[in-house]
Every structure is written in C-alpha cells, then in structure tokens.
C-alpha cells in the first residue's frame, strides 16, 4: 500500500514536535453486498474505502487524524494534524527505522473477486426457495450476502511494521411467519473469516430452513415467563452471555479508568469453578480472527478466567503501556477513521464434562434458550441484558412449549457464580460488537450450560 521510506518520513514528521509514539494505520477495503427481499434481487452493491489514520501519543494525550489521500503529501498533512496535540519543546528529532516486510496472504482460498456476481446471487435464490418450502406460513424472506477484503498496514515509530489481509464472508436469512397470532421472525446467519470456499462446506438451504423454523415455531409460542428461573443455554446459542456478563468488564480501558466491576479482582474467584474463559484471536476462520490486531500485535490466545479464577484482562497498546506490559493483541478499530481501543476477538467458554441432555433432564422447571439475539452491559454496575430469539419452557426435565422473544437480565459477577453445569458440546457463533460508536466482528463460543437463576423478562406472571 505504502512504501517503507514514505512511512518512515511520515512517522518522523508526526513526532517532529515531540511525542512518545506515532503510528500509521492504512487500510484498503473492498466489499460487495447483495440483498434478496420480497422474492427479488433488490440490490447488488459494491464499496471501496481506502485511507489512513495517524495517531500521535504524547503523555496521556492522543492526537488523531485520518485521510483518504494515501500520497506522501496527504499522509504528511494528516501527520501534522495529529501532531497538533504535541506540546512545543518535545524531543524534536527522532529517526524512525521500520522492520522488514513479511508478506502475508489473504485468509481465503477462493477470493471474492474470483467468483462471478451471478454465482454469489444464485445462493440467495436458493435460500429463498428453501425458506419458503418449509411451510405456507412463511410470508416473507430476506436473504443477505456480503464479502469483504480488508488489507491493513500498521507502522509505528518503535519500528513495528505489520500487515494483514482479511477476507470475510457472511450470509444471513430473516424469515417472517404469519399466523392467527400475528407475525413472528426467525434469523440465522453464517459469518466467517474465509472466502467463498466456505460454501463448499456450508449449505445455505440449511441456514434458510433454520431461520424459517424459528419463525414458524414462535407462531404457536406462549409469552415468556416473568421472574427468576433456572435457564439452560444451548451450546452455540450465542455465547453473548459471557461477552456481556464479563467480557466487556475485562477490557483494560474500563479497568484503568476504574469503571468496571472487575477492577482489583485478579486472582479471585469471579465465577463458578466450572468456568474457563478465553479470548482467542488466533482461531482460523472464526469471525473475530486476524493475524495481527489493528495496532500490529500478533493475535493471541488469552486466558481470562481459569476454573473460576480471574487471571487477566484484555489490553491494547495504550492501556498496556500504562501498566508497563505488552498488549494482549486486543487493539482493534472499525476502520482507518477510528482510534483503536480494547476489544474482544473470539470469546469462548471452554467445554465442561456434563452431558447436555442430562442438564435439561435435571432441570425441573426453567427456560431453555436455543438461540440468543444481542445484548448490552453496563460495565460499571455489571448489569447486563441478553435477548432470546428461540426459547422453550423446561417442564419436569423436558423441553416443552416454544416461548415468544424476551430479554433476560442479570448481574455479571452474580450470574457467573450461578453457573452450575457446563456440558461437552462446544460450538461458536458470529456476532457484531458495538462499543463507543465502533462496530467490529467478534466470535462467541460456549457449550450447553445452566444458570441456576436469572431474571426472565417475559409477560407471563
């Protein structure tokens, strides 16, 4: 994207008025999206975004500017703008020497640009047919396809030079079923850090049938219960529970500002001993995977909670520097127009030893959640919500009637202690995580597990 001598000159300029660190993050992203709605291919779209964000860190202050102009002149102008925060009388002269380049290939064997538009669109029609063939009650189907190739280059004044080339592919189906009780929705998606080869393995008809099945089953659903109940989360039902219950609270930006319930808890029991939580950016193909993070640190597997004991937080460059340690590879940003911050990658609760069916059988009364929607957390209080999109009542150890959508609410540290069974059936799901106005792709993973009590926010008393 940019030659090393240019990078070196721009970094030098960025620190001309002083500063501790300067960094260039350049990005070239191409994307294609297709939408089928109401039986029609409504839109095929293409997008291109290219630019660089430059930051200059001076003490506790970060200056940032971005530009879509990747010429040396454009980069120098952005460097000057970012450096405006540097106080006069800084060190002034600093020679920046970057490390050697090492080529990195794309995360795909079948590149999006090598697949014809017609081939991509064929998947949409197939999914539409498959969804509608599940029953006459399916009244509307939306199918979405998207691929992107994101090439990034990170260089900083410490000599770091790193590149990544991420190909991502997603496919989603939303179905509406209409019956006597009104309309219900069902959703299912696939999202991988892979190219078009993913469709050799994954059948889009199946994604469509799962989405349709969710909408259909909810037509006969009863209102979700109201109040505290045992809840069994199916393996791969969303993992969002941990993302919200503790993931965000373990991000070091919340820790260093003392705005997390997990401050000062390292070495302490913060969860049931059945819980081991890792954040792992290295798992090839997962939605939140990469080779280097958006600050150039290699992706890592970080154990956050081991057998219930809090072992570490997640770190980016800025917050790690404050503590005199290294980043854990969790510095991420939405695009070159954004500053990096501490973000999760793929956050997994590791498999336990229980049999998933046994967990249900040993639950006299409760809620079985087959699929979760999104969630939200207040890291300071630890209170978090997560929504169900496919759930059932458990009665006398059996999964019985379907339930309408509802949010569940709990307090992170409390809910983590109430996990009293963890099964062997680990599975992952993709998601999009929003924080401070920035969205990044993340993975979640979890086996079937039970929370002995959490508040279910339905309408049935």
């Amino acid at each position: 994207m940019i030659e090393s001598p240019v990078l070196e000159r721009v970094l030098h300029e960025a620190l001309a008025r002083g500063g501790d660190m300067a960094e260039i993050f350049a990005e070239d992203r191409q994307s294609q999206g297709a939408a089928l709605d109401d039986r029609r291919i409504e839109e095929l779209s293409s997008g291109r975004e290219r630019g660089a964000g430059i930051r200059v860190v001076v003490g506790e202050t970060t200056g940032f500017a971005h530009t879509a102009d990747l010429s040396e002149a454009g980069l120098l102008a952005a460097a000057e703008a970012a450096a405006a925060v540097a106080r006069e009388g800084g060190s002034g002269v600093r020679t920046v020497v970057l490390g050697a380049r090492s080529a990195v290939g794309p995360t795909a064997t079948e590149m999006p640009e090598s697949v014809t538009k017609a081939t991509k669109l064929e998947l949409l029609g197939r999914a539409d047919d498959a969804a509608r063939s599940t029953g006459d009650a399916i009244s509307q189907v939306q199918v979405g396809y998207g691929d992107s190739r994101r090439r990034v280059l990170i260089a900083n004044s410490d000599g770091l030079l790193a590149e990544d080339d991420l190909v991502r592919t997603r496919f989603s189906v939303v179905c509406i079923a209409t019956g006597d009780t009104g309309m219900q929705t069902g959703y299912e998606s696939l999202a991988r850090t892979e190219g078009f080869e993913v469709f050799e393995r994954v059948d889009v008809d199946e994604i469509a049938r799962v989405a349709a099945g969710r909408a259909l089953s909810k037509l006969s659903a009863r209102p979700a219960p109201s109040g505290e109940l045992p809840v069994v989360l199916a393996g791969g039902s969303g993992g969002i529970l941990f993302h919200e219950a503790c993931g965000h609270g373990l991000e070091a930006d919340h820790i260093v500002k003392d705005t997390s319930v997990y401050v000062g808890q390292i070495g302490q029991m913060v969860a049931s001993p059945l819980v081991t939580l890792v954040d792992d950016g290295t798992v090839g193909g997962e939605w939140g995977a990469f080779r280097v993070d958006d600050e150039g640190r290699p992706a890592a597997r970080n154990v956050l909670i081991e057998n219930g004991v809090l072992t570490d937080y997640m770190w980016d460059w800025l917050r790690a520097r404050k503590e005199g340690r290294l980043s854990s590879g969790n510095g991420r940003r939405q695009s070159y127009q954004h500053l990096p911050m501490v973000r999760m990658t793929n956050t997994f609760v590791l498999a336990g030893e229980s049999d998933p069916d046994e967990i249900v059988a040993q639950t006299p009364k409760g809620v079985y959640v087959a699929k979760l929607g999104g969630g939200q957390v207040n890291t300071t209080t630890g209170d978090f919500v997560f929504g169900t999109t496919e759930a059932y009542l458990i009665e006398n150890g059996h999964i019985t009637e379907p339930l309408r959508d509802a949010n569940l609410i709990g307090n992170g540290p409390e809910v983590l202690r109430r996990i009293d069974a963890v099964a062997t059936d680990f599975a992952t799901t993709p998601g999009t995580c929003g924080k401070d106005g920035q969205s990044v792709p993340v993975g979640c993973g979890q086996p079937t597990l039970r929370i002995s009590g959490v508040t279910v926010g339905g309408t049935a008393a």
Partner: protein
Amino acid sequence: MSELPDLARTIVERAEGSEAVEAYLARGHDTEIRVFDGEVESLSSATSAGVGIRVILPGESGEGNRLGFAWAGSLDADVVDATLAEARDNARYATPDPDVVLAEPDGRAAVEVDLWDETLEKLATQEKVAMALELERAVRGADPHIRQVSSADYGDGSVEVALASTTGITAFTRRTSAFLSVSAIAGEGADSQTGGGFSVGRGPGSLDPDVAAHDAVLRAVRMLGATKAKSGRCTVVFDPRVVSTLLSVISSAMSGEAVVKGRSFFAGRLGESIAVPSVTLVDDPTDPRAYGAATYDAEGLACRRNALIEAGVLQGFLYDTVSARRGGTTSTGSAVRGGYAGTPGAGCRALVLEPGHLDQDAVLASVGEGLFVQSVTGVHSGVNAVSGDFSVGAEGLMIRDGKLAEPVREVTVASTLQRMLQSILHIGSDLQWLPGIAAGQTLAIADMQLSGD
C-alpha cells in the same frame, strides 16, 4: 459555494442511453475531543468524503427496471469513474421490477430549514477543549457521591450533501452539529451507579454544559442503593429520553417499505384506532427545532409534515419513491439513507408526539403507584417491530404516593407495542427536542409486566 453540486451533475451527465443515474455526494468535517481527569485523552479531527451512485437500467418490452449501486470513500475522479462503472455492472444482475425508478420532481416546494451555524467554523480547538474540561469539572464538583467521570466529550461536525439525477432532481444541503456528553459514576461504599447527560445543538452556542452535567449527576446519584424489585404488573412512567427511543422503534412499523413487504403490524389498519385517543403523532422535518430537521429527503424531494396517528387513528405511512409505487401511492418525501454508502429507504426524521397538559411531577402524582424508568437497555435485542413483542432491561425509581421513591435496577419491563399504544394513561407536557429521529416527553403506560425477583 461548494463544488459538490457541479460534481454531482457531471456524474449524472455520463448516463448512457436510456439508463437513469443518481449521484449522492457528501463531504464532512468532524472534531471529537475526549477529556479525562483534567487532561485531553484524545483529540480527533478529520475530513471525509464519498460518493454513492445508483444506476437503473430500463427493461425491454416492459419487463421492469434493474437497479445497481456502488459507493466509495473518495471523490477523486478515477474513483468516481470506477464507482459509476461498478454500479452499472451491478444493475445487470438485479431482478427486473417496474416499480424500481428514481424520484422525479413532484412540484412540492421545499421548506428551507437553516441548519448551518456559522460560528462553528471560527471556534478554536482550544475553546472546544475548554468546554469539555469545564463539563468534566462541573460533574466532579456537583455532588460528593461522584467518584469518577468515565468520559467527558465535546464533538462537532459539518456536512454538505449534493444530489443529482437524470430524472431532474438537484438538491444541495449542509448542516452543522455540536454536542457535549458525559458519563458519571456515583459511589457509596461498594455500590456504584452510572448516569449520562448530554447537550446537542447546531453549534457551540446552543450547548449547555450545566444541563449535561446536572442530568448525569442526578441520574447516577439517585440510583445509589438500587435493588431488584418484586415481579408484578404495574404502571410504568417512562422518562422523555426513553420515550424518544420507543417512538423510534414504533416508527419502523410505519415505514411504507415495511408495510408493502408485509413486515408491519400496522399494515391494513389505516383508519383504525390503534392507540388511545390522546395520541397524535407526526413526522415533521420542516420544524427547525427537531434534531432531524431537513429541507430535502434522501432522494432530493422536499421534506414535509406527515401525520401518522391522529386522535389514536392510524392516518398514514411514510414512503420513499420505490415503496410508494409498490404501495400504489406517491412518495411522502420520507427517503432516508445512512450516508453515501447506503441506498435510500423510507423512514422518520422528526417524530413528535403531541404533548399533553401534565408535567412530569403531575404525571407521577396522577399515577400514584408504579415504576419510573430513567433508562432502558437491550432495545435491539428485546423489541421486535415485526411481532410487536417488547421486553427491555430497565433502571429507575419506584413511584409511591405519587412521588419518586427507592431506586430499582436489574429488572425488565415487558408488553407488546400494540398493547402499549392502547394503554397510554398520560402524555406529558414536557416535550424535549432530543438527538435522533424523535422528540420525547414523559409517558405513562398502564399494566406492564415488571420482572425482578
């Protein structure tokens, strides 16, 4: 004068044969300052620009038209050329549809809304930093319970948008905006509670750090000692900010696009009573007080006042050009789009629920017993605008003897949107022009399910 309108025209002039072309160009400048503990934590400043191009290939022998779209985050000539070519190529793959057309001038005169604050350009960065620092100081000094200000931000931006099409549309708009926002943490013993406050305007002169600070502090401090409440049915009084969010969600079921595609529970109910008679809801982007006020919609048609509900009776939906044709009607000037990277769809900009006669205290007094909700969470995961199912996390205070009493957290409130509209007890007089697509005022809704212990 900006050169964007000329650039938009030159793109449109490159239409080939009988194809229709629309160019949407935007350029903006943003500043964001975050302070922490008396220091600037980050200062970002940047200009960005981009183009979105729609090409419609006409069908042969009436088989329908095909739409293609492409966008790019640059206005460089070579990039614009490639974007036009890519949009044209994409159009070849769409399903032919006679209803897919670009907007045409509809003779409606635009109401010029002045959204440009000249003073913004002249404000020095140091003054912006000073406002953010002042905000942080105001929060820290307001109450001994405040133990942290997790962020205090100043932000502003200006954006110019030009639109042109082969169907005779030309529109140019520009707007400025500025905001202050702050997150406070109150503490007492091991208990910590949070509260947020903000102030928004077209320019720095309309920002009020005291309002933002006061809101954040009040909301955090009054939550100290909060506990879970007992489950049961009760009347819920929503804070104006929450009501703005609720209206935004309900409005998605009033999009003509949702209606024609069978995704709205309001479809087929025009002329019917869908809410209590005190409910009158309009979308009026021509009102300059509204945050989402605009002169033109995202297809270049004049924005106009549209009545959605009058005295509880459903009056109409909001349409862009394509959804209007599919619904057998005409555009209501309600096209919206998420910048140059998005295509237009039908949506609201400036929803206002007609205020009632009681202020918040009077609403609380009238309700007597219930739950006052100051903020909600999980709206995207727990509110389904297709089925109407409604379940959100809530925090607030119990209402006892007509007054705010002990704080409550970690509860949910649930119902259905359809039922909530029919169970409104009071609409407050305390209308607030809030950021987003809806204003808000205090609202009391009977018989909702509270879930806690």
